[in-house]
């Protein structure tokens, strides 16, 4: 039985440029997974951007030193596919009856296709949105799961005019993504426009009912003597029967050391 809670997937990732991989996502996550850092595959930085991975593997110079950034090809010249990358990893997760598991991406720039054990799911566009995929039914019963993610850059990466300027040609503003990446008075243009799995990836195991996005609000009366904590949460019952639940809230304050006052 897997433990209830969140497990981060932040180690053991591999990456490869999409144009150098002839396999499909289904093949990568079934019959022909990459076996290590040979061929086009390299150690990946996740969470992180494509450039962070290329820098980690010394395939580009560090853009923050001298004029090194000038020797890194800009996406406007290379085309979007040059910075469209595969990211691959494996993870263990052995469920017992009536447990469910979500695969969560807290930030992907800009859109992606997810393949898990041969099944495909899309992550729609948008840099600042979370994605949570219920993958309970496509996990391998023996526990070893193969995950591949094909990450696409922003739709409008723009082109940096010769004179530079704030936000380059402003094309990036057509997308819902960070705008500094075309360059600003304080920073050079970021060649991959921050494409990548830029924030946390995790799997979360729950029972039949999961807690989603609790909202905590306090209200104050009598000059802060009388205070209320209002808590609202979304609850999702993923089972096929009525779930009779006990919902608990506990508020503790950390005193010195590990003594808790309830």
């Amino acid at each position, binding site marked *: 039985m897997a433990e209830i809670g969140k497990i981060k997937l932040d180690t053991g990732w591999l990456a490869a440029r999409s144009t150098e991989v002839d396999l499909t996502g289904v093949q990568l996550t079934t019959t022909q997974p990459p076996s290590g850092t040979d061929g086009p595959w390299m150690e990946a930085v996740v969470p992180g951007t494509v450039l962070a991975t290329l820098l980690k593997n010394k395939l580009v110079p560090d853009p923050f030193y001298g004029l090194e950034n000038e020797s890194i090809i800009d996406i406007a010249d290379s085309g979007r596919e040059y910075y469209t990358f595969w990211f691959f990893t494996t993870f263990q997760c052995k469920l017992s009856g009536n447990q469910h598991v979500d695969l969560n991406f807290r930030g992907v720039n800009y859109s992606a296709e997810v393949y898990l054990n041969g099944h495909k799911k899309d992550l729609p566009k948008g840099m600042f949105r979370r994605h949570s995929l219920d993958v309970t039914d496509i996990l391998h019963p023996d526990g070893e799961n193969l995950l591949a993610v094909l990450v696409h850059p922003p739709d409008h990466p723009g082109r940096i005019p010769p004179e530079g300027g704030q936000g380059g040609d402003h094309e990036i503003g057509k997308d819902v993504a960070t705008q500094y990446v075309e360059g600003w008075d304080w920073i050079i243009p970021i060649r991959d426009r921050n494409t990548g799995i830029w924030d946390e990836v995790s799997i979360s195991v729950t029972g039949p009912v999961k807690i989603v996005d609790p909202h905590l609000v306090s209200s104050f009366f009598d000059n802060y003597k009388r205070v*209320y904590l209002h808590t609202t949460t979304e609850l999702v019952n993923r089972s096929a029967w*009525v779930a009779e639940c006990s919902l608990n809230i506990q508020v503790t304050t950390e005193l010195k050391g590990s003594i808790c006052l309830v």
Partner: protein
Amino acid sequence: EHLQTQHVSIPPGASVQYTFPELFFYKPNLWWPNGMGKQSLYNVEISIDVKGFGESDLCSHHFGFRKIESHVDSATGGRLFKVNGQPIFIRGGNWIVSDGLLRLSKKRYKTDIKFHADMNFNMIRCWGGGLAERPEFYHYCDIYGLLVWQEFWITGDVDGRGVPVSNPDGPLDHELFMLCARDTVKLLRNHPSLALWVGGNEQVPPKDINEALKNDLKLHPYFENSNGSSNLNNDIS
């Protein structure tokens, strides 16, 4: 008295919103910005047990009791802030991104944010051309008492200015912008350091986006009361 259990019955396949009866606290330790008092934090843990299964899910979140108010002062045109009823002189810094390759480590956030507190700052403004900062950023702002002014992804340079005017109507997909904004608010709204959501940098977002943001972020009527309201309430639901 800070432990409460409620019985909830959820139909198969359903998603429900549940609100606990409010929890009463007598003179709780308040959360104060850097330089005004202690950043008292409570740990709120929510768990759910399902009959016939056992514990099904749990989550916990640091929470600080504080009330933040702000308004634009008609005399000076500047925005005045109050925390827990006390006016505060804002000493703040600009924040863009911690690293251009988004290597956003907790260690780096802790160092950068503690540095701001050591400089005697009490606010960090997250510029609209950068990121909606991450929970780890806000976690350390909660701990070190840095209020956060968080802008959405609109800037005067890229949206609606220049010759010719670029992106006069902002991003192409306004629904996508609002979906991202709503999800970002849900990700960050429980942090006591979050003081103000701002439409963008040097620019008002396109009218429909601005109206939607104002509507979604206004204080829920339930919390309006004569004794001053709740903490900044972003009731999206």
